[in-house]
């Protein structure tokens, strides 16, 4: 017998596990993979090794140094190149047979080229890879059998969700946050779609924002944590670390590495000063000089007190030796916002403690940031604020910085690996039930009821096994579609905003695109009057005319309290009836100054309903309160018993507190949608979810793993770095 070639042996091995029918279905299926990052790299590797050959992959990003420790297909020499293209080339080496059928798109999945025709793949398209000859010599693309989502942001996942619903494609979505994750199978009419549950705020920050162009406090906190790691922890795992041979080296790396050999306070503080000057002054000045920020709105301003105009190294050392400004009494200091000078002193104090102290010095290189370690948190607060000062971002108190820091969830490579593996196993289930294709060269198309019959599951990944069944991987039945979902069930949606102050532009950009992920909305009033449209052949003059107008002043009667607005998006095949409720918050449309006002200037969906209910309840409560006061007064007059009156007054007080508590809670929830990140609020999201994750008692994943009721999205990342 002739020695078997590698590819036949590999096929034999796969066929033993999959069986001949499924092994063939795998070779013929055509997949769309959206995303080639943390999950995408793992997914592409698994797919190719499982025997899939026809794959198109879309990713917008290029490879960053910080991707290398999680996105395992990428190497240092790939930095700067498109993720989709490099990922394709690397996985091709694992299965060269896929050379002609693996296609990479370095592009945004929301681009018009990936329209519904693309998802359906029925239109005659230009020559290129992945095309096949069909009847009459026409070039025709094959249908996608399945769509796999490996995205890290809600907006793109929603878009792909809508495209799949519109084209009837089964979609396997994966998402991770730290040590937890989920893999969900979606198909129109069969199971809940990605948007059937409202998702809490998710924020994903690109690395370059953290390293070069921060514009929010949280960006500075992430940077400060990385600086802590660079200086005292596993330096090479820090986002700010640069290998000695890095192109365009930063000024700070050699300074950071020149740590004093011996212990001793003064040497440590002097080292600390040089590091701070390099990080917060010299490096930023050099970048400004290099023109890095030439196109930025505002160029950063290096921290002056660390520069040549500052008091200089010796003076700082003397200040630290004098004991600096110190901490302060009680818990008050945690709420203060430190001055720049105080921040420098705090940081120098940390250098003195960790580098100067013989006991702690031994652990240098091993410090792990922990928000409950006061010293680490002092460092992060002070570094956050110096960074923020350079970029014109508001400074944070220790307390607030701690809230933000505790809420930053890093991407974890193992969770991504598990999620991507589960995605492929779900894909195999679907293909297993697909009928054998005839003729054999055409990719299998799926019959109507596929993912339920195939036994697909929602898979949850958790960190700690809990419950009677002690599951680390928890499957549950697919959730049914939510009748109230505006995406897959065309349900209507409520929005509360100030119709007299908010403009049409605000409605389009912040509400429809920013919060509801519409791509090209058309807005119709009273059934027939179009007041806004986008896309090809759109009436741009009308859009320009109407965008600056307050909603109430729009033509066709405007948008006022209890108006119903129709929003259509042809590109996503989506229609929405939006019920508008007017509310004026004190302090203008942005609601500044009004404690109850949502920071975004509007409330949406469930939050809007809550707010409307709360407003009604508050009105009712006010009436009761008035009645109760009258009763009290009457009782006082009548009985003249001071004791009894006191008891009643106390009860009244409790009721008031309860009501205030309720209002506060609904306000907090009201910040859903795309609210600005707010440390304290966001912390609540995470804590609630973790609490559930570890105390769940049942093996069924709906209760365990923090995915109960409001569930499926409950562990959406608030902040992910990827």
């Amino acid at each position, binding site marked *: 017998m002739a020695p078997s070639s590698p590819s036949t042996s590999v096929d034999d091995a*796969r066929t033993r596990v999959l069986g001949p029918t499924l092994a063939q279905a795998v070779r013929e299926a055509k997949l769309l993979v959206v995303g080639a990052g943390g999950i995408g790299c793992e997914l592409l590797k698994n797919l190719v090794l499982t025997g899939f050959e026809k794959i198109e992959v879309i990713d917008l990003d290029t490879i960053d140094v910080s991707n290398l420790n*999680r996105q395992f297909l990428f190497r240092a020499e790939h930095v700067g190149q498109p993720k989709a293209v490099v990922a394709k080339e690397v996985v091709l080496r694992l299965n060269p047979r896929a050379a002609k059928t693996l296609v990479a798109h370095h592009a945004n999945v929301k681009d018009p080229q990936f329209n519904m025709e693309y998802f359906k793949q029925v239109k005659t398209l230009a020559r290129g890879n992945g095309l096949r000859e069909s009847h009459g010599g026409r070039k025709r693309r094959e249908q996608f059998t399945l769509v796999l989502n490996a995205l890290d942001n809600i907006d793109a996942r929603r878009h792909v969700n809508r495209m799949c619903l519109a084209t009837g494609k089964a979609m396997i979505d994966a998402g991770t946050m730290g040590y937890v994750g989920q893999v969900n199978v979606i198909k129109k009419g069969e199971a809940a779609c990605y948007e059937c549950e409202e998702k809490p705020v998710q924020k994903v920050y690109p690395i370059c924002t953290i390293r070069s162009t921060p514009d929010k406090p949280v960006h500075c906190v992430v940077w400060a944590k990385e600086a802590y790691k660079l200086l005292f922890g596993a330096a090479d795992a820090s986002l700010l670390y640069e290998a000695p041979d890095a192109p365009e080296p930063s000024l700070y790396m050699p300074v950071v590495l020149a740590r004093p050999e011996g212990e001793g306070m003064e040497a440590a503080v002097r080292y600390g000063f040089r590091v701070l000057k390099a990080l917060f002054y010299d490096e930023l000045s050099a970048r400004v000089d290099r023109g890095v920020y030439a196109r930025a709105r505002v160029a950063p301003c290096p921290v002056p007190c660390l520069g040549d105009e500052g008091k200089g190294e010796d003076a700082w050392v003397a200040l630290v030796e004098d004991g600096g400004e110190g901490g302060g009494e009680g818990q008050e200091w945690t709420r203060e916002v430190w001055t720049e000078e105080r921040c420098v002193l705090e940081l120098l104090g940390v250098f003195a403690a960790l580098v100067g102290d013989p006991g702690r010095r031994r652990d240098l*290189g091993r410090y792990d940031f922990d928000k409950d370690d006061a010293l680490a948190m002092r460092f992060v607060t002070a570094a956050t604020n110096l960074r923020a000062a350079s970029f014109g971002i508001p400074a944070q108190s220790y307390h607030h910085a701690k809230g933000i820091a505790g809420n930053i969830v890093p991407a974890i490579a193992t969770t991504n690996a598990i999620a991507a593996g589960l995605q492929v196993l779900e894909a195999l289930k679907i293909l297993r039930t697909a009928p054998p294709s005839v003729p054999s060269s055409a990719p299998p198309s799926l019959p109507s009821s596929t993912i339920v019959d195939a036994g697909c599951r929602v898979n949850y990944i958790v960190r700690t096994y809990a419950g009677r069944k002690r599951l680390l991987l928890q499957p549950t039945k697919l959730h049914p579609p939510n009748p109230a979902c505006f995406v897959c069930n065309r349900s209507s949606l409520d929005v509360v905003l100030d119709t007299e102050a908010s403009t049409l532009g605000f409605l389009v950009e912040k509400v429809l695109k920013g919060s509801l992920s519409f791509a090209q909305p058309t807005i119709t009033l009273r059934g027939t009057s179009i007041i806004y449209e986008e896309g090809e052949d759109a009436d741009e003059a009308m859009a320009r005319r109407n965008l600056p107008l307050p909603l109430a002043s729009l033509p066709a009667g405007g948008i006022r309290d209890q108006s119903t607005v129709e929003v259509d998006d042809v590109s996503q095949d989506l229609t929405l009836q939006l019920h508008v409720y007017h509310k004026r918050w004190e302090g203008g449309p942005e609601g500044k100054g009004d404690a109850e006002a949502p920071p975004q200037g509007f409330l949406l969906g469930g939050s809007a309903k809550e707010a409307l209910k709360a407003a009604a309840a508050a009105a009712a409560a006010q009436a009761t309160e008035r009645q109760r006061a009258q009763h009290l007064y009457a009782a006082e007059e009548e009985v003249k018993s001071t004791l009894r009156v006191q008891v009643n007054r106390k009860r009244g007080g409790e009721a008031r507190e309860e009501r205030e508590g309720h209002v506060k809670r609904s306000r907090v929830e009201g910040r859903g949608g795309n609210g600005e990140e707010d440390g304290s609020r966001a912390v609540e999201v995470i804590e609630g979810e973790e609490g559930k994750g570890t105390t769940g008692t049942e093996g069924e994943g709906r209760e365990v793993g923090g995915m109960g009721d409001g569930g499926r999205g409950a562990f959406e990342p608030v902040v992910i770095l990827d």
Partner: protein
Amino acid sequence: MQEARVLFCGLRALGAEICKNVILAGINVTLMDAETVKPEDLGAQFFLRPEHVGMNRAEACLPGVQAMNPLASVACHPSDPSAYPDSFFVDFDVIVGTDLTPAQMRRLDTLARQRGKEGGREGGGFLCAVTFGLHAWAFIDLGESFIGRMDEAPEGGRTEGKNGEGGGAKPLPPREFTLAYPSLSDALAVPWSALKSRFPVPRVFVMARLLGLYEERHSGPFPPNATEESVEVFVSESQLAMGANGLEAGFLSEEELRALARQSQSELSPVCAVVGGILGQEILKAISRKGEPALNVFLWDGATHEGRVIAVPPPKEKE
């Protein structure tokens, strides 16, 4: 974490997956594999490419493993654990066996436990795992008394320095816990029927043990291209073994046993990815001593998609 070292004995697909996850986390690794790369290895093992066929498997993997993290140290031994004295294994914080004979497993488990007893060192860990078709099992042994810390102290359970001069008061240490792991020999001596709790005896555990017993009896794993005759031998021996362990004869049907035999040596990439991710995480928990590691058997059921942790032997006190 930076100084920890993990030994990988066996670099087929599952070994490679776990190794990838460990080295990406910045941990030093040592690769040990006596086998040469065979054509069928290429199917699920991403460190290997066609040009590696015929090379030693550990040596072929070395460049790919190192490239994943140029800062971690990677060592390579193109041989079998039996070629090394007991003292060799003392250097490793965790030993991972994915392609070991039953005798080698017991030896390495014993060595890892001894390291834990000797003074001056933190206990070593031993972990062995196998995938068969869509299913997998893993055995974890972190020694007689493994001390770890919970991920996070409960809110409000800590005090904070009032005044941070040079660090202020330290936060209270996170809650510590101690786990006692049974040895591999003790775990394997448990009759399978004893694993019945309020849930039935886990099928995947029984499947893994049947393949393990076959390997012990026949001095080698069930071969991938075995004759129908050998399959029937496996079926009848397995039925006897189930009976001897207190299970009814039909606990696994003949058809299930035949399918198990046919898939025994086959690794499927996504199964290795799932199990490799879980075990990679368990190794990181063991090394960092942060988070509660699994005690002591992990089972992945590819039919139900459940990934369960069971204690073998089961805890004495019934809940």
